[in-house]
């Protein structure tokens, strides 16, 4: 009956690692943010799977909170990127080695 939880956890591991590699490899802060979204989503998949395993909806409530935090994080992060871009006119995280301008 249904898909076993191990499948969901395996998928979430793969997605999470793709997100980690994306954060490490890319230099564009926008793509890095998208990779962070990938990681958060992978965690959501794992939470739903574990909640199914325990037979309670608490995992799904946690996913709801993760989504709220992700929305807030993306809004603030993109605002920071846009305001940095206004000053620096370049879009590469390697050049952001100063804590002031």
């Amino acid at each position: 009956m249904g898909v076993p939880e191990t499948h969901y956890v395996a998928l979430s591991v793969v997605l999470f690692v793709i997100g980690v590699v994306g954060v490490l490899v890319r230099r564009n802060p926008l793509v890095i943010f998208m990779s962070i979204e990938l990681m958060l989503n992978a965690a959501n998949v794992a939470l739903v799977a574990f909640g199914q395993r325990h037979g309670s909806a608490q995992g799904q409530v946690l996913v709801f909170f993760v989504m709220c935090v992700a929305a807030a994080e993306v809004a603030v992060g993109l605002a920071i990127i846009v305001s940095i871009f206004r000053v620096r006119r370049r879009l590469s995280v390697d050049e952001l080695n100063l804590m002031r301008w």
Partner: protein
Amino acid sequence: MPILTFWILAMLAVLCAMGVVVRQNPIHGALFLVGNLASIAGLFLLARAEFLAAVQVIVYAGAIAVLFVFAIMVLIPGKEETGPDPYRPQRWLAVPLGGLLALEVALIGRSVLWATPSRGAAVDGTAQGVGRLLFTDYLFPFEVTSFLLLAAMVGVMTLTKRRA
């Protein structure tokens, strides 16, 4: 039949995730991100988390993806990762290290799954079931979330305000 649906959606999710990382143009990346989020919404449906599937589509595909596209439009399109990469060999190290991390996380996940036997109880993933839990056991975190969203909203406004 569910297992076949799972494999199709999982393949789609993984391919779209790789597209986000591999594509040079960030607008393609945003499109792949939407594909990934949509297939994960399908997976939530498959796992009987109907409420989460709806929230996933509304919040991620509706709000976050649009936010990304707007940010890409505001920033100069196509002008990214300019100049030669001084850390290129180090960056390729990320792929084998990622494989190692995958192995580690998979082992941890497997041990956790083995430690918790399956209850076999059906989870109520409808808006009613999740909402009841949200407004009883998790009422305080729920209220804190509203405060967090307010703080993020005010923060974004102050961050993007042009200085006189």
